[in-house]
């Protein structure tokens, strides 16, 4: 088969001469809807800008003054830290719960079901208050035989500060939601994949780790990104613990002191938007990594990253599909 570049008659033309004679010169069909909607949107945006600039309630000088305030920036740091730690811990819990749900062991299935039932079924605020009171409810943890001797014990107060109560509380709640997402991701992997792995002599753990989870991640990452952004905003509830260094608490405290709630709400909103943007970049790279080998992976270069259109070209170029060597076995 000859390709366009090897045939001088079909080589790309320098100028003027179109290599495709009779190319259709198409005129777009009229689309007045596009123009009408554009005009409406422009007018609305101008109105909004006018409203934002001229309304003194927004108090932009105060926004500018406090957007880089030390307390606010520290609040951003704490919020980000809680979000990331709670998501990592939550994902580990969720993966464990999802795998337990698929187990042949009815005890593990039951435990996983009960965990999801409780932590998905109660408000996260209630859970955070509970974890905040944990050191009061459970002042001491001891290792021993129930009702029997006690080998060793420690005071929870020393090891469970409000920060970790917040992280653990958010992670346990998140894990219950993520468990269902991960379970559906694991179920989305074709059954032939685990059969092929079994036929190669791989064990169940290996099949899960090496074959099923990497493919399930492709389905899991987009909702996981959603959940991370949700978590970012849920951290504003950690005052229930109470943990009082996060972004929402910091801006609220300043707002109460200045008696100016609106500019500091804008400060908080702008920071949440900024963090979300950063997280979206991270999601893009995760999706690209776990999409490797699949046709719909976004962008990039190199043999692994071409789309469906390139597949046939790759097949043809390889010329490993013999054209004429029909089987001697066929009559």
């Amino acid at each position, binding site marked *: 088969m000859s390709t366009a570049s090897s045939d001088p008659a079909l080589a790309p033309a320098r100028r003027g001469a179109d290599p495709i004679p009779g190319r259709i010169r198409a005129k777009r069909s009229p689309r007045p809807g596009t123009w009408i909607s554009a005009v409406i949107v422009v007018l609305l945006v101008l109105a909004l800008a006018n409203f934002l600039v001229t309304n003194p309630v927004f108090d932009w000088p105060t926004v500018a003054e406090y957007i880089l305030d030390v307390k606010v920036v520290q609040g951003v740091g704490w919020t980000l830290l809680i979000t990331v730690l709670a998501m990592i811990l939550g994902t580990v819990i969720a993966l464990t719960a999802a795998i337990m749900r698929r187990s042949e062991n009815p005890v593990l299935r039951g435990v996983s079901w009960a965990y999801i039932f409780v932590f998905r079924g109660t408000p996260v605020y209630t859970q955070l208050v509970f974890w905040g009171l944990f050191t009061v409810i459970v002042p001491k943890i001891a290792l021993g035989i129930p009702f029997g001797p006690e080998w060793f014990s420690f005071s929870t107060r020393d090891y469970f500060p409000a920060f970790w109560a917040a992280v653990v509380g958010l992670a346990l709640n998140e894990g219950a939601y993520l468990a269902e997402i991960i379970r559906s991701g694991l179920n989305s992997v074709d059954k032939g994949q685990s059969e*092929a792995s079994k036929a190669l002599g791989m064990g169940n753990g290996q099949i899960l780790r090496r074959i099923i989870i990497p493919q399930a991640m492709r389905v899991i990452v987009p909702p996981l990104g959603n959940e991370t952004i949700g978590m970012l905003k849920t951290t504003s509830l950690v005052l229930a613990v109470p943990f009082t260094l996060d972004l929402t608490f910091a801006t609220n405290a300043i707002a109460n002191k200045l008696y100016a709630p609106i500019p500091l709400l804008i400060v908080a909103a702008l920071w949440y938007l900024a963090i979300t943007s950063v997280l979206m970049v991270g999601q893009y790279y995760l999706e690209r990594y776990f999409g490797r*080998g699949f046709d719909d992976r976004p962008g990039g270069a190199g*043999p692994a990253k071409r789309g469906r259109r390139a597949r046939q070209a790759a097949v043809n170029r390889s010329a*490993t599909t*013999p054209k004429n060597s029909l089987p001697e076995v066929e009559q």
Partner: protein
Amino acid sequence: MSQSPQDETVDRTADRSSSGTNTHRADAPALIELQGVHKAFGDLHVLKDCDLTVEAGEVAVLIGPSGSGKSTLLRCINQLEEPTAGRVRIAGVTQGYEEEPLPDGRWQKLSPKRIARQRARIGMVFQRFDLFPHMTALQNVMEAPVHVLGRSKEQAREEALALLQRVGLGDRAEHYPSELSGGQQQRVAIARALAMEPELMLFDEPTSALDPELVAEVLTVLKELAEGGMTMVVVTHEMGFAREVADKVVFMDDGQILEQGTPDQVIDHPTSERLQGFLASVL
């Protein structure tokens, strides 16, 4: 007889040298031995009392109408299906259970680990290829040698490249399955199975999902394998392949093995009406 783990580890260098010929040692047990294998899904009896023997180096081709139980029989050989009744032995070793029943007459199932070790000795190629889409062709072939046999990555890579070369895909090693044609994918799948140095290979309609012009390249690889002395059980509708390559053709219908024999006996001189009808529809 109880098995020591050594018996089951995947070391079969001793077998390889003799597998190039079709000589059968009279005293050794048949490589594949199915005894009264029966499979029922509820009231549906997919396999009915099937007996089949395949000697080392033989190529057995299973033919029959769809739904006749060919694939299920094949999947019983490497325990992707558990027979409801009957026994499967590979090289004299009962698959999936201990050799002797317990005192109360029940059979002790093997642990998942030991079942995995038994499967590792049997290569299988599927109709839909079932390559791992998130790995390149090379990674697909290296996966099991590294993670099941514990080979070093360097050694596994070298062997995998040699195998890809052997199936004519030496220059496709770094490509993902989605960038390969069906025939190329199936040849990678064959290389992946061969990388485990199996004692026998199972093929479940290996060309049925392929465009007609891609069937030949896969059948050529199968033929070369057969000529190399590999023991093979092949479910296929390719009668030309069966006639040329098979030592034994097995006709199944409605879950039963109705006829078996040489290609000449089964394909050219069928005795039962049902086989004559089937052949008339496919030839």
